[in-house]
């Protein structure tokens, strides 16, 4: 969707969207010089609105929250791939890995 459409869905002015993009809270795709937003960007923008509005998080707080969330999703993605790789091993290998993790505790 275009930025005007995104702003309409969120009921915000375009200058607010601009500041969110300046903060890199949103990173739209650029196509032929125009900003393109996906449904995922809309969902992300709704999260930003929740943080700023009802949760009362200030600008610096949103910066921190978004950075940590992006790290968590990066980590979850990597961890998911690792789990897939482990699941594709023989049961014996899976058991040995689990035993090693349990030992660490």
């Amino acid at each position, binding site marked *: 969707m275009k930025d005007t459409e995104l702003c309409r869905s969120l*009921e915000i002015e375009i200058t607010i969207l601009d500041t969110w*993009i300046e903060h890199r809270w949103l990173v739209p795709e650029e196509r032929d010089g125009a900003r393109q937003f996906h449904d*995922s960007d809309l969902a*992300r923008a709704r999260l930003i609105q929740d943080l700023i509005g009802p949760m009362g998080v200030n600008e610096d707080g949103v910066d921190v929250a978004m950075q940590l969330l*992006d790290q968590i999703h990066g980590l979850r993605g*990597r961890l998911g791939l690792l789990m897939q790789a482990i699941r594709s091993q023989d049961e014996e290998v899976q058991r040995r890995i689990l035993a090693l993790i349990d030992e660490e505790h």
Partner: protein
Amino acid sequence: MSRSPYEVLEVSKNATQKDIQSAYRKLAKKLHPDLNPGDKQAEEKFKAVSAAYALLGDEEKRGKYDRGEIDETGAETPPRQYYRDYASAGDTAGRYESAHSFSDFGDTDDIFSSFFSQRGRRQQSGRGRDAHFSMEIDFLEAANGAKKQINLPDGPPLDLTIPPGTRDGQTLRLRGKGEPGFNGGTAGDALIEISVRPHPFYRQDGDDVRYDVPISLSEAVLGGKIRVPTLDGAVNVTIPANSNTGKTLRLKGKGLHRKAGGHGDAYVTLQVVLPQAPDPDLTAFVEGWETGKAHNPRRHMGG
């Protein structure tokens, strides 16, 4: 039997609107699905808390609920797609999630090192450093937005758009206008800290703006339409007859741009002002005005 919205928000039935808001904030921060990416239950709980707040956070709806005019489900809201649904499904195409901070999970010789640091998949490149500047702007420029130029010690001047509703101490970011990157990396950003000069009569109060407006004795006694300045131009305001000094009128939506959209309000406090030069007609009238002589506005002070 579903729980009452008061039970969901863990507040008593006679909680103030403020209590309800802070209870909601506390729970929302704990339960928001995007802050609990892997917890399926968080979504259900957050929905319940949001629905309860939608009802109790609105004084009018809360009143209707208390009087039994509506039940705890209130109005239906369409189901919402949370950001975590996209991020988990990998729909963000690597634009947001970051894996830079996990490189310590493997030694450099480790066969897994590239898995966590993503080294070997993508050429290491560095983003340029951010450049910091500061700038002073007028109150009205901050309130209504403006176009400014910053002169740099080296290089061409930068055009800076001040968005409407910019606050004192806010930092604006010009993407890619900092120091150049290396190895094909992107340039850093220019960060401009804004300080807002105070205005002779507008005072900022959160998203609202407050100021005094002088009115003449005739306007105070008889009421009528007066022109009142606002951040984006003068408007006509009707003041009621017998409007005293200190009476405050609210001009809805005439305050500052809110970060989350919309505007604050303007609060205008009236100040009754006598004519500059003494007026013989007025003096003669007041001399013969018995009620005026009997009026003691300092009675509550023991005067």
